[in-house]
């Protein structure tokens, strides 16, 4: 028994060390083991599925950026190089390309779930608004990413997309000219779209996703509309056990004090 206990303490030591100095372990535990309604089902996993799709996009995108060259002379050849020559390049590019559609589809499904479950109602209106911003930014990611292969399809689709923006009343011409960085698609348009796709929007997306998650944790998950349990009717939980503290502070003897 004593050996097992000391082995347990040895494993827990770095975790306790981290917890005492940052509170992070408790935070993660709070996030993972927070209370949710007992009758949640698979529909409520669409949000985390969307998050997973975003993480896949972020990771594969960062890796693709190691090989992609956002320059009118080299963009297309770097894409063919990634697809045909680099080991597993076809796979990573394919994940990013198809994952983009998955991300958009999941966002819409998640939005539909929230709408049909009435989960946008008080006090969660702000999270709906943030979600709409996330959707708009996600669609902008799709628009700016579509130009990057720099082939005929992407070039002319982006031309049409920019000119569609140009037909917006009053601000349209300015918007179109801002987007393409000039009167026509020019040498800077590709790197401009790349910077927007790769740095500007992902930064905003990550910040808004963190805010979105914070509100989910703060306000809790809604029960499905068919739930039979009125809100707050569950058994009263016993207070949580005291956290493991005072375990890793260095003592004069140089050994941790066992609690």
């Amino acid at each position, binding site marked *: 028994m004593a050996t097992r206990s000391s082995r347990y303490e040895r494993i827990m030591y770095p975790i306790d060390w981290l917890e005492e100095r940052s509170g992070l372990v408790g935070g993660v535990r709070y996030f993972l083991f927070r209370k949710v309604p007992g009758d949640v089902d698979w529909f409520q996993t669409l949000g985390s599925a969307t998050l997973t799709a975003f993480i896949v996009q972020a990771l594969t995108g960062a890796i693709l950026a190691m090989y992609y060259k956002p320059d*009118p*002379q080299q963009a297309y050849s770097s894409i063919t190089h990634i697809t045909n020559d680099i080991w597993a390049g076809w796979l990573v590019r394919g994940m990013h390309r198809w994952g983009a559609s998955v991300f958009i589809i999941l966002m819409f499904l998640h939005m539909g779930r929230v709408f049909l479950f009435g989960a946008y109602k008080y006090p969660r209106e702000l999270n709906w608004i943030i979600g709409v911003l996330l959707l708009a930014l996600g669609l902008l990611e799709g628009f700016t990413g579509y130009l990057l292969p720099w082939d005929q399809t992407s070039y*002319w689709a982006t*031309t*049409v997309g*920019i*000119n*569609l923006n*140009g*037909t917006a*009343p*009053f601000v*349209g*011409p*300015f918007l*179109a*000219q*801002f987007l*393409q*960085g*000039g*009167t*026509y*698609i*020019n*040498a*800077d*348009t*590709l790197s401009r779209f790349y910077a927007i796709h790769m740095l500007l929007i992902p930064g905003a997306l990550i910040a808004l996703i963190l805010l979105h998650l914070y509100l989910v944790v703060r306000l809790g998950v809604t029960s499905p509309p068919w739930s039979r349990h009125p809100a707050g009717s569950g058994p009263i939980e016993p207070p949580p056990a005291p956290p493991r503290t005072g375990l890793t502070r260095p003592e004069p003897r140089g050994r941790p004090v066992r609690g």
Partner: protein
Amino acid sequence: MGLAVGVVALLVGLVVNWWIVVAGAAIAVAFALLWVRDLARPRRLTEVPELEPERRDGRRRDGAPLPPRTYGRSAFLELSTLGLGGVIGGLVTLPALGFMTLPAFLKQRSGARDIGPLSDYPVGKFVVATFMARPEEGEVSRRTAFVRNNGAVDGRPSFTIISNHCAHLGCPVQPNTDVNVPHKQYRDVTLIPLPSPPSGFGCPCHGGQYDTEGNRIAGPPVRALDRYGFSVRGGHLFLEAPFSVSHVEGEGATARIHKYTFAFPGEHIDGPESWLYPIQPPH
């Protein structure tokens, strides 16, 4: 809000006119001062000696007038921190925002382009000329014009030069005839003389159709095809700045072209719908 309007006016002024910059700066400063005053007021940063209900005559219960409001040190420090932070933030942000935004609106006009000797443009025939608007930018600046020599009118040359940018959403329109014919090269300009006259021009994207003067005859485009101005120097044809056209009456040298400043595809340039686009950015 007013501050934002002022900053926008300032930025727009940088493109359009220095006087608008001055006006925008004045608006921005005025509203910034109002804002700071507004921030200072409702927060009760002033020290209130004792709480008592306000009276309509603005005097205390004992009839003495209220002491004049004074700013404490913490209020001063709070305001100066906010103000200094705002100034520093503005100094850092505004140039970056301008750097992102303004180049798209400055120096957009490219110079005249030599597209070959007049002998390459036989009278009455269309030649597809593909050229680089800005050779220093490379192939990405390649554009196409349909050029027809209308012969001389009163001793002055006449050309019909139609841009290939569809007036719907900017796709490349094609001549409705066989274009797989031998082509000539003049420097970076590719010239395809069309042996048979096209019946018109058609767009592959959404099916817009135009006649040989560029008038819309079918499909979604909202106006006629854009045209290029031209000049003839030393026996060579030069393309000048493009302009937009609502419609063309007549044909060839005697055509009456209803000419407007260059606008993006899809924008109406005449009729009530053109009121949606009152200001064009400098192209």
